């Protein structure tokens, strides 16, 4: 697909603002939505031309290292001396664009470059969505151009173009869990499609073998399960009916007299909104009426439904169950500091947060706020206290990762009774994937021995952070995807325009139930889909989204092939009627098709496509 002429001119002009066209010029940009002769994946390809002596590579690399130490961890050094040429520039553009996208969209973007004729070279970056890829290409092009033009000065383009790229990427960046799933899908060579341009909605697999995910939930997770987990009081009631342990609780009426309720629940207690997640409005370890009153008004700020719950002594665990089996178990500890006999609490907190802000750790900084001060206060210290060596002080009463808690993998030590409790509860609610919050003094021992209680059940299991932190293996995301997703066979027939009507008639006439076919039209089994504004590629993708499709037949011509790239990254069969594609495209079709035939007769071509069970 070519981008519009106006857009291209604008891009070329922006580049010229930072780098003389005599030095670096953008010749062409095209986008392939499917595999193409240049890449086995959807890609944006830019062609550049350099026509004047360029600065030494070393100086450009030094500059990039200075500007983007994380993306270019090494300076120019001695080895890369000599002037830049078109191929080097294209490689730098590709690397910068790919690295920026990888960082901002949190999916590994592939990139490549190659020398073309004369002083031309091309760069290639993987394509996910239109805006982000184009913006990344533009940004990389301009930044590299600027550094070629003025290698010694800090550039201005970063300040102008990075925010634009951030904005374009923010709109299509999968949320954390989705990006872990996409990474797993890529490792397993499974196709994925974004649903409704929503950052948390993704389809993995095609047709009958597709599954949709919203964060970590799929459609195997039921609506009633979500309803049961949404309100913590409902979850707790269900636990009681199932004979599963959960701390005593009361839903607070406006009229409830707090001291009386508190005395039936007992001290210390916890107050939380019944139907909000992420630790919002939760106060733990409440030990007196004044604190309780504040906690209740805090919680009421978030929901009408507020519950008071007995404090369950022990550590917080997150037990994630997938397909009826415990798949992850982690302990979450509240953030804490340990005294060294010299520094104050304030200094220790600052040191902790400095380390966490460095970006090398998955742990989040702990905000210094009222909640921290109250927590410190309850341990009889404040920010100015100098802690004796070895003395541990909690900075939060809760261990939410979002407010700085730490995480430890405990899957190998979970007691079988606790494991089954989590697995059975998940099944009883109707979840395929759930994250259960469980408190116990010792996860290695049974509930019968040490007690413990279920606090709540989360629909978003929260596995992505622990995968990124390498606390649990990244294969966990593959477990979440499961066995169901896969490809359905896609067969492609490339035919000249004059044969399309005849072949179309045959395909439509004889299309079996469960099969879909598309050309300038689309049909599922015996019924036509309505006309739509979709192009050839969009129509192919649309049919791969229908869950009833067992097999897809596509009737294309050479123009659509050259325009879009292959309609799918793997073809069960390709049939070419008449004129052969260009050599590089033919080579691509041979590589990507399980079987390729060339025929001369339209009827024969159609019959081949309709043959079942290759």
């Amino acid at each position, binding site marked *: 697909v070519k981008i519009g002429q106006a857009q291209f001119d604008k891009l070329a002009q922006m580049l010229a603002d930072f780098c003389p066209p005599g030095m670096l010029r953008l010749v062409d940009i095209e986008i392939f939505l499917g595999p193409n002769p240049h890449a086995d994946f959807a890609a944006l390809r830019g062609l550049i031309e350099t026509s004047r002596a360029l600065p030494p590579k070393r100086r450009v690399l030094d500059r990039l290292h200075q500007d983007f130490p994380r993306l270019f961890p090494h300076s120019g050094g001695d080895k890369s001396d000599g002037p830049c040429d078109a191929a080097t520039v294209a490689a730098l553009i590709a690397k910068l664009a790919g690295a920026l996208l990888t960082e901002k969209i949190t999916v590994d973007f592939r990139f490549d470059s190659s020398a073309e004729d004369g002083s031309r070279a091309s760069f290639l970056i993987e394509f996910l969505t239109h805006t982000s890829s184009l913006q990344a290409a533009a940004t990389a092009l301009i930044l590299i151009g600027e550094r070629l033009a003025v290698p010694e000065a800090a550039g201005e383009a970063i300040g102008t173009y990075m925010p634009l790229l951030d904005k374009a990427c923010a709109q299509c960046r999968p949320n954390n869990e989705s990006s872990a799933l996409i990474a797993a899908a890529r490792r397993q060579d499974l196709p994925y499609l974004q*649903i*409704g*341009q*929503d950052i948390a*909605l993704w389809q993995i697999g095609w047709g009958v073998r597709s599954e*949709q*995910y*919203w964060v970590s*939930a*799929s*459609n*195997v*997770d*039921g*609506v*009633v*399960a*979500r*309803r*049961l987990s949404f309100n913590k009081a*409902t979850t707790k*009631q*269900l636990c*009681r*009916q*199932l*004979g*599963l*342990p959960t701390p005593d609780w009361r839903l607070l009426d406006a009229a409830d007299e707090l001291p009386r309720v508190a005395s039936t629940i007992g001290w210390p207690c916890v107050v939380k909104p019944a139907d909000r997640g992420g630790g919002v409005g939760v106060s733990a370890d409440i030990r007196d009426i004044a604190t309780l009153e504040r906690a209740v008004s805090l919680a009421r700020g978030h929901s009408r439904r507020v519950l008071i719950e007995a404090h369950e002594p022990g550590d917080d665990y997150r037990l994630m169950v997938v397909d*009826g089996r415990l798949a992850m178990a982690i302990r979450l500890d509240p953030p804490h500091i340990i005294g060294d006999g010299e520094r104050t609490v304030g200094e220790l907190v600052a040191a902790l947060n400095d380390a966490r802000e460095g970006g090398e750790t998955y742990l989040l900084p702990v905000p210094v706020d009222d909640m921290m001060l109250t927590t410190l206060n309850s341990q009889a210290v404040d920010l100015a206290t100098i802690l004796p060596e070895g003395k541990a002080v909690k900075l939060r009463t809760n261990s939410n990762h979002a407010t700085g808690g730490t995480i430890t993998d405990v899957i190998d030590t979970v007691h*079988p*009774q606790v494991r*089954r*409790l989590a*697995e*059975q509860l998940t*099944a*009883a609610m*109707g979840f395929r994937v759930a994250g259960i919050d469980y408190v116990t003094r010792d996860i290695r021992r*049974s*509930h*019968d021995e040490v007690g413990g209680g279920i606090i709540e059940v989360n*629909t978003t299991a929260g596995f992505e952070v622990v995968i990124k932190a390498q606390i649990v293996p990244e294969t966990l995301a593959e477990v979440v995807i499961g066995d169901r997703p896969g490809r359905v066979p896609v067969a492609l027939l490339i035919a000249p325009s004059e044969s399309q009507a005849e072949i179309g008639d045959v395909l439509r006439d004889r299309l079996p139930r469960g099969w879909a076919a598309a050309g300038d039209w*689309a049909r*599922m089994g015996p*019924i*036509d*889909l*309505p*006309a*739509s504004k*979709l192009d050839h590629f*969009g*129509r192919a*993708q*649309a049919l791969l*989204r*229908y*869950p*009833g499709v067992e097999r897809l037949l596509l009737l294309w011509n050479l123009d659509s092939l050259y325009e879009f790239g292959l309609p799918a990254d793997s073809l069960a069969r390709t049939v070419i009627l008449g004129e052969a594609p260009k050599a590089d495209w033919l080579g691509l079709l041979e590589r990507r098709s399980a079987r390729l035939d060339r025929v001369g007769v339209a009827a024969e071509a159609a019959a081949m496509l309709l043959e079942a069970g290759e």
Partner: protein
Amino acid sequence: MKVEPTVFDQIARFLARSLPEGSLRLETLEIFSGPTPNAAVPTLQFQVATDPGFHHSNIVGRLAASFPKIFPAEPDSNVLVGAEALAALTARMAARLLDQRWALGLQWGAAPSGDGALGWFEYLVEPVGYQALTAALLAVGTALGDEGDPAAASRSQRTSLEHGLDHAGPDLSSQLLIGAARRRDVPAMMITRNPTMWQFGWGKHSERFWFTASNGDGMVGNRIALDKEVSKRVFRQLGIPTPRSQIIRPGEDHRAAANSVGWPCVVKPATPGKGAGVTIAIDDAATLDRAVGLARKHGNILSIEAHHPGDDHRLLVIDGTLVAAVRKRIATVVGDGKRSLDQLLAALNRQRSGPPRASGFLRPIQDDDALAAVFSRQEVTKATIPEPGRKVRVATTGSWWRGGTGTDVFEKVHPQVRLLAEQIAGVLKLRVAAIDYVTRDIGASIDETEGMFLEAHTVPAIELFLSAGVDEQHIADRLLGPKPARIPVTLLIAPDELHEKLTNELRQRLPETAGLATPEAMQIGSFSVPESRLPPHARVTGALRYATIERLIVLWRPEDVVTYGLPVDALDSAIVLGPPLPDEWAMAVDRHAREVRSCADPDEAVEVSLGTAASA
């Protein structure tokens, strides 16, 4: 089991206060969670008494006069009545009071017992059961005396019962599901205390419902359906025609948005709100401004979409198949040249007052800003007296929530429209989906009429289909679906002294897919359920809530059976170890078990329990 003393005292004292001395007294009140010697279902069972000589010769006639629907006149209604008849009249009235709302055919009965008589009725939901009983006792007690009108005497109790039914009883869709389950002999139990959430079937064959939604509806599809903008983008990705649309956030220019989606247009709150705040067919800027103001009362974020001419339709797809289709119509009143719109509306709303069945499943029209707006667009006010035959719209859309009505068009739906509705439900993985479609002709293809799909709903307004005359049982059976069913339950009755040994044996040898419930313990496969606070009958229902078990063994003492009733209403087999049950209970077990065996040896009983379970 005796009910909580507070419950009993409350009812008994209320009666003593309201009825003349010596009239009807409540002697006992028991609740059974399973069949009893008297009833095949869970019942409230009560004993009533009256002072000798305190009776009215025409009690049945007096009741029939007050409650003609509950007590249709019978030829022998003037007979002198005894305690048994009083119990029967009370039980019948309590059951019918509940059934006027539910239409489930609840069971009731009575029998002599000692000096007085026992009555029982199926209660389904505990709190409303007590309310129904109280109202029935009051009415019968009043009819028993010479003074007072049974209807008037029980009115406030019947009103409380109506409130109770509104809030603590199953909603209409749950009633439909319960009805379908009863027809198919599928057990139903409430999930938690929310009467809109029910579990049908047991263990592995159970399905949980919330209104008409079940776990067969996917969470992702539900998420998509709830977000109308994402839904439309999904439709476009699928090549399914849907109107151009845009979101209007606070501060954004809604006229520019209208120009971009095109005129005429529709404005509504972005979050679905039961048809509130929707204005359709907006074709000028002034109407648009008013429409935005109206919609903003229901949400800050609005959606504007192109208005396509044609009728709104709602297509109901269940388990991948189109089950019903209605054309929605905006509620109207027709002028008679005499009454004002206010009066016409009041007359319409009188027909539509009361619970769903009584109002033809239609909603009353609300007198609010939306009504004022729709009147103003038609240049009328509430005081206007429309000329005879003039139709005046009383809502902005055909939404059922806004009083809209429906016409059944199922037979006419074009195959292409049907296919796409079914595919949308399939893409969203919704077992039950209601899909909104606009077309000038439901019988023509989408291409011919430029029909447009608007949105999908996880929970359809089922009343819309019923009000259009779609068969209630047909829809209910499809909603319940094929999944819910029983699992085999084996009851082992053994004396207390053998329980420890039997429990240990059974626990150790329990297959992974079987459950065990005893008065003290619950075991699901190899999972020993930790909680120790549940009473024996709650352990049985608790175990049946576990989705992994394919069979259940219940080990009870004879006294547990007598206290709680049989643990479930249908037993695959019953094994009696040791002394037999009291005769009437032994007969009840006989009636409800497919097979009954007596055993003398505990080891043999264990083998039979596990063996029966294994072969089932």
